[in-house]
């Protein structure tokens, strides 16, 4: 059996690397051949072409993330028309059924952002910056929007590149230029979360830092009390379960009856220490 995963996240992105690890593990466990593919940048046109390429190879199952239903819709529908079973992961829970996917494993970015916002607002935050290291990546933009909604207070989006030292400097600058900032939301733990922690430390201020996704160092910061929490989508599940379901479907025709929410799961100080090692291996 052959299963293809097409996502919008690159293999060298920390978050998607975990998904990919889940995909590979599930492939081994279920005994199917899986291939993970993604465009080189967040590029919906290229991604739809990759889906087309996958459909041409007529795999036994196709797993896709759907950050843009308009752009990817026709390609997914073509897969369905070709009789290839499709599962959507990560983003696109709202359109997954419509496009003919069997089910969705994942968590809505917007909802995750909202959950984070609410948690940070509960910690007393009133003014926040949302560090967006890939402006225009709709998935990340949604995280910020959800966060803004959940947080309720004043939120400024801080666009950066994904260079850690630039992010650190920019967060420092944002803190220095606005004394009121008491919350920093990072959209990726290793690229943005860690430098944000460093910047906050350098400023000597009491600022809550939270981040999407996990990284070992960021978890360490949580454990040390330098950061508030990390939002864990448990994306390993997105890769693992989807492939698992698909493998079982291919072998036995099995498929759960509804969407599977993989998160959100807030990793706070108590839990952080336990997952550091797992994170360092690319599982959490």
């Amino acid at each position: 059996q052959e299963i293809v995963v097409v996502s919008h996240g690159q293999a060298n992105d920390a978050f998607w690397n975990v998904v990919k690890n889940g995909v590979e593990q599930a492939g081994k466990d279920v005994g199917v051949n899986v291939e993970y593919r993604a465009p080189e940048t967040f590029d919906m046109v290229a991604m739809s072409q990759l889906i087309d390429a996958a459909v041409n190879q007529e795999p036994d199952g196709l797993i896709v993330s759907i950050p843009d239903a308009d752009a990817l819709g026709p390609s997914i529908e073509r897969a369905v028309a070709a009789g290839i079973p499709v599962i959507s992961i990560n983003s696109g829970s709202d359109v997954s059924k419509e496009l003919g996917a069997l089910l969705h494993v994942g968590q809505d970015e917007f909802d995750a952002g909202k959950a984070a916002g609410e948690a940070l607002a509960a910690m007393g935050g009133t003014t926040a910056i949302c560090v967006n290291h890939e402006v225009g990546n709709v998935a990340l933009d949604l995280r910020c929007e959800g966060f803004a909604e959940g947080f309720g207070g004043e939120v400024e989006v801080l666009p950066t590149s994904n260079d850690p030292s630039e992010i650190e400097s920019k967060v420092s600058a944002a803190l220095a230029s606005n004394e009121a900032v008491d919350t920093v939301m990072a959209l990726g733990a290793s690229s943005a979360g860690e430098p944000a922690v460093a910047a906050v430390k350098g400023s000597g201020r009491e600022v809550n830092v939270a981040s999407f996704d996990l990284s070992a160092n960021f978890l360490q910061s949580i454990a040390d009390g330098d950061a508030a929490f990390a939002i864990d989508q448990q994306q390993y599940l997105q890769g693992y379960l989807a492939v698992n379901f698909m493998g079982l479907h291919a072998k036995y025709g099995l498929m759960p009856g509804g969407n599977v929410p993989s998160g959100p799961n807030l990793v706070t100080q108590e839990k952080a220490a336990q997952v550091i090692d797992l994170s360092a291996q690319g599982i959490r």
Partner: protein
Amino acid sequence: MSQSAPVAADERVKSEPFLTKLMKRPELGAMAGVILVFIFFAITADASMFTLAGVMNFMTPAAQLGILAIGAALLMIGGEFDLSIGSMVAFSGLFFGVCVVTWQLPLMAAIPMTFVFAAMVGAVNGNIVIRSGLPSFIVTLAFLFILRGLSLVGLKMATGGSTQLRGVRDATENDWLAPFFAGEAFGGLFSWLAANGLIDTFKSGAPKVPGIPVEILWFIALALVATYVLLRTPAGNWIFASGGDRIAASNSGVPVNRVKVSLFMLTACCAALVAIITVMDAGSTDARRGFQKEFEAIIAAVIGGCLLTGGYGSAIGAFFGSIIFGMVVIGLTYTDFDQDWFQVFLGAMLLIAVLFNNAIRKRVTGER
């Protein structure tokens, strides 16, 4: 010696075989690379890569890239760069999206407006470069950022906060101009072929390939026109001259500034064409469309033999360069390589294709 020869044979020239003559043309240099890459994938890739559907599949991104690459190649031959084409794709895509979705204009109006708009931005680029005498690299780099930023701002304004503008497909579906810029051409022919069992079909009986994606036709047409212009018109001569040595060209009476500004406008229009096609195909646009396409376009042009220093290159070279690039990028997904190794293979394939093509040319033409 031969009696019919009008001019006596020159003893200072060796006769050379036809193949050698061919390989000397910059137009055909990149072909060796295409063949090599083809052979590589014929061996390593899934057989479906070279079915009709597979070919259309890698030709589509190659065509989208190629339209940009041909524009970039002409501009490079003319001695300048345009780093803003990638952003221009996003920006003119936004403009086009707003035209059809927000303003509800028919394509008849929206498409010309988009082209005019893009050409104007190109003219601004060009005029700044000419007037200031700054390198085009830095000027168009500024526009890379500016246009990308404006796309973001514009999208948010148009959509009320989102970075994705949707609904283009609904707005354009029934327009009579749509078939020229979106979807597949020759649909009827392909259905007929499918009905007669000449091409593969899905279980449903629909052809696997519903037609030739229009971008491929645009791509081929553009490559032909650009080659014709370069090799067979005065304008082509002026482009080579302007890029070869702008002072010498100007001293010989070539209107260098006019040529360069026109080329900037042309490149911007190529970006607008790609924007229109991809936006209509995808039905949506977002702030990251065309990201780094300027880079890939320059890569394709250089693979195809354009010199970064200007004055040398060809549109057909850019054509083959884009196909090499598209074939490698999509082709790797037809092979069993782990995605982690994707970039390693991509880089290695590019290098080998170019080295090979270079080695072949040297061997054949006896250059040292």
